C-alpha cells in the first residue's frame, strides 16, 4: 500500500502489464497444483486397479462368507472382516468421545501455561509415532498389566490410542476455525460457557472433527503391526459371540474377550505364501480394504456437506 502511494501508477499500459503478469503467475500455480494432484490420483488409481484386477477372480459372495483355508480358492475373509468391524467399533466408541472431549478441554477450558504447551507438543508428536510402538505399549499395558488378553477389546483400545492424537488435533483445529464473533454473540445473549460449547462450538466444528475421525479410522483399518504385536490370530474359523442376544438383556459383551483376526493380517499372511493363488487372495483383500476406506471417506464427505449446508452464519 505504502509503495503504491509513494509511486502512483500513471500509465494504464503498465497496470495492464502488471495484471497480465499476475494472471500468468496464477495460471502457473494452478497448473503445478493440478499436476501434483493428477500425478497422485493417477498413481493411486493405477495401484488400485492393479490390485483390483489381480484379485478380481476372487470377488464373490464366497470370499466374504468363508473362513481361512489351506486351499487358496476356498479361503475367505469372513473372520477377518467381522474381526476388523468389531475392533473398529471399539476403537470408534473409545477414541471419538475421548478425543473430542480432550480437544474441547484443551481448546476451551485449559489454562494456557507451560503444562498445556507440553501436552500440546506431546499430542502432536504422538500423531507421528510409529504404530508398532503403540503395539508394544498395548502388549505391556493392556495384555499383561490389565490382563485383558489377546482380545478384540485390547485391539480396539490399542487402535484407539493410535487414533486419539489425530482426533484431538483435528478437533482443536476445527474449534479454532470458528469465528470469534459467533462465540461473542452467544455470550452476549447470556449463554453459559457450557451452552456455548455444546450448542455452538461442537456443532460448528463437526465437519473438521469428522474429517479427523475418518482419517484416524482409515489409518486404524489398515494397521497390521500393532495388532500382530498384541497377538491377533491368523487362522480362526469361527466368529466371536454375537453382540446381540435373543434373551434379556439382549446385548452381551463376551465378544470383547474373543480372539480375532483382521483384514490386513490375512493379506500379510497370504502375500508371504509361496503359491500364486494366495497372492490373488491377498490382492483381493487389499482391494477390499481400499474400497472400505473409500466408502468411509465418502460417507464422511457427505455428512460434512450436509452439516455445512445447515450452518447459517
Amino acid at each position, binding site marked *: 500500500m505504502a509503495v503504491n502511494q509513494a509511486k502512483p501508477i500513471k500509465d494504464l499500459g503498465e497496470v495492464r502489464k502488471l495484471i497480465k503478469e499476475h494472471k500468468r503467475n496464477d495460471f502457473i500455480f494452478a497448473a503445478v497444483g493440478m499436476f501434483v494432484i493428477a500425478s497422485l490420483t493417477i498413481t493411486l488409481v493405477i495401484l488400485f486397479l492393479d490390485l483390483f484386477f489381480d484379485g478380481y477372480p476372487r470377488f464373490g459372495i464366497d470370499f466374504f462368507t468363508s*473362513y*481361512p*483355508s*489351506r486351499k487358496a480358492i476356498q479361503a475367505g475373509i469372513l473372520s477377518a472382516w467381522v474381526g476388523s468391524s468389531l475392533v473398529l467399533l471399539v476403537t470408534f466408541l473409545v477414541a471419538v468421545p475421548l478425543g473430542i472431549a480432550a480437544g474441547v478441554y484443551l481448546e476451551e477450558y485449559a489454562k494456557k501455561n507451560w503444562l498445556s504447551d507440553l501436552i500440546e507438543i506431546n499430542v502432536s508428536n504422538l500423531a507421528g509415532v510409529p504404530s508398532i510402538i503403540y503395539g508394544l505399549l498395548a502388549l505391556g499395558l493392556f495384555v499383561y498389566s490389565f490382563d485383558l488378553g*489377546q482380545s478384540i477389546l485390547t485391539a480396539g483400545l490399542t487402535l484407539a490410542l493410535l487414533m486419539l492424537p489425530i482426533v484431538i488435533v483435528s478437533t482443536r483445529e476445527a474449534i479454532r476455525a470458528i469465528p470469534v464473533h459467533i462465540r461473542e454473540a452467544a455470550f452476549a445473549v447470556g449463554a453459559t460457557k457450557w451452552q456455548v460449547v455444546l450448542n455452538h462450538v461442537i456443532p460448528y466444528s463437526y465437519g473438521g472433527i469428522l474429517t479427523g475421525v475418518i482419517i484416524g479410522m482409515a489409518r486404524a483399518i489398515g494397521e497390521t503391526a500393532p495388532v*500382530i504385536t498384541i*497377538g*491377533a*490370530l*491368523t*487362522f*480362526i*474359523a*469361527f466368529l466371536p459371540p454375537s453382540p446381540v442376544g435373543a434373551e434379556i438383556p439382549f446385548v452381551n459383551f463376551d465378544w470383547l474377550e474373543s*480372539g480375532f483376526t483382521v483384514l490386513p493380517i490375512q493379506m500379510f*499372511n497370504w*502375500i*508371504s*505364501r*509361496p*503359491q*500364486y493363488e494366495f*497372492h490373488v487372495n491377498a490382492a483381493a483383500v487389499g482391494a477390499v480394504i481400499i474400497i472400505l476406506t473409500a466408502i468411509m471417506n465418502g460417507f464422511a464427505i457427505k455428512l460434512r456437506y450436509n452439516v455445512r449446508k445447515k450452518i447459517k452464519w
Partner: protein
Amino acid sequence: MKYSKFTAWGLGATLATAFTFTAPAQAAVDIIEIDGSSTVYPITEAIAEEFQKETGIKVTVGVSGTGGGFKKFCRGDTVISDASRPIKAKEIQKCEEAGISFIEIPVAFDALTVVVNPSNDWAKELSPEELKKMWEPAAQGKITNWNQVRPGFPDVPLKLYGPGADSGTFDYFTEAIIEESKAIRGDFTASEDDNILVQGVAGDKGGIGYFGLAYYEENKDKLTGVKIKNAQGEFIAPSLENAANGKYNPLSRPLFIYLNATKAAFDPKIKKFVEFYLKHAGKMSAEVGYVPFSDKEYAAILNHYKTLKTGTAFKKPAIGLSVHEILSLSAAN
C-alpha cells in the same frame, strides 16, 4: 461361573475332593490355542481346518514367529507352539521358571533350497564348503565375484539374497553351512518375505539365495535349484523325494510342534488334536509344500508322544538328523 461352581462343590465336600473336581475343569480348554512359526503355519492351518470340520472343537493359530511363539507358550498363553527350529536353552529356562514342561514333536521336513538365476550355467552343483565360502562372516567385502568361489567360474558379480536374522531358516542355514549359529556376512540382501528373495534372484544373473523348498517349487520357471553335495559325496537336487529319503542333506531341517506337557497328558481335546495331527501330517505337509516323514516314522512319533517324554532332543545343535535319531536322542535324555 467357575467360582460359584467351586464354592458349591466346596460346601458339600472337603477341600481335597473339591480340588479333584475343579482341577479337570480348569485344565480343560475350550479353544485349542496355537501360535509360533510362520514356516510351520501352513501345516498347522491345514490340520486345524480339517480337525475343526471333523470334531467341531475350535482351534486358533497365530503367527508370532518361532521365538514369539515360545514366549507365549512359556507363559502358558498357548498350549501348542509351532517351531521351525528346536527350542533354545534360554527358552527352556523361561518355561521351567513358569513350571511348564513340554513335549517335542517333529512333524515334517523342510528342504532348504539354494537357488540361482536360470541364466547361471556354471553353478548347477555346489558343495557346503563353497556355500560357506560365500556366506561366512569372513567373506564380507572380499568374496564378491563368482570366480572367487571356484576356479573356472566366470567373472560375474556375486549377489547374495537370504532371509533376515529373525528367521528360523536363517538359524538353520548358518548352523548347517557356517557351523556357527547366526554367523553370517553383513553385506547381503535380507528379507523376511521369501517372495522378495525369489524376485531378487530371478532378476539378477549373479544372484544366489536360499529358502524353503515350497518357494522353489512354485517358482521353478524363474529359478534354478542348485544340487548340493551331501555327506556321502553325491550332488543331490532339492526335491520332495530326495529330502524324504534322507539323501538331501545337510539342508533338510525338521519342523516341530511343542506341546504343553500337562495339558497334553490330561486334556482329551489336546490328545485328540495331536493324534489327528500325526495321522494327517504326512498328507497335509505334502499338500502345502513340505516333506512328509514315512508312515512308519509318524507311527514312531505317535508312540513317542504317548510316552509323554518331556524335553528336547537338541541339547546341542544337531544337523541332518533323521526322525529316528531325533526320537532316540529325545528318549535318551
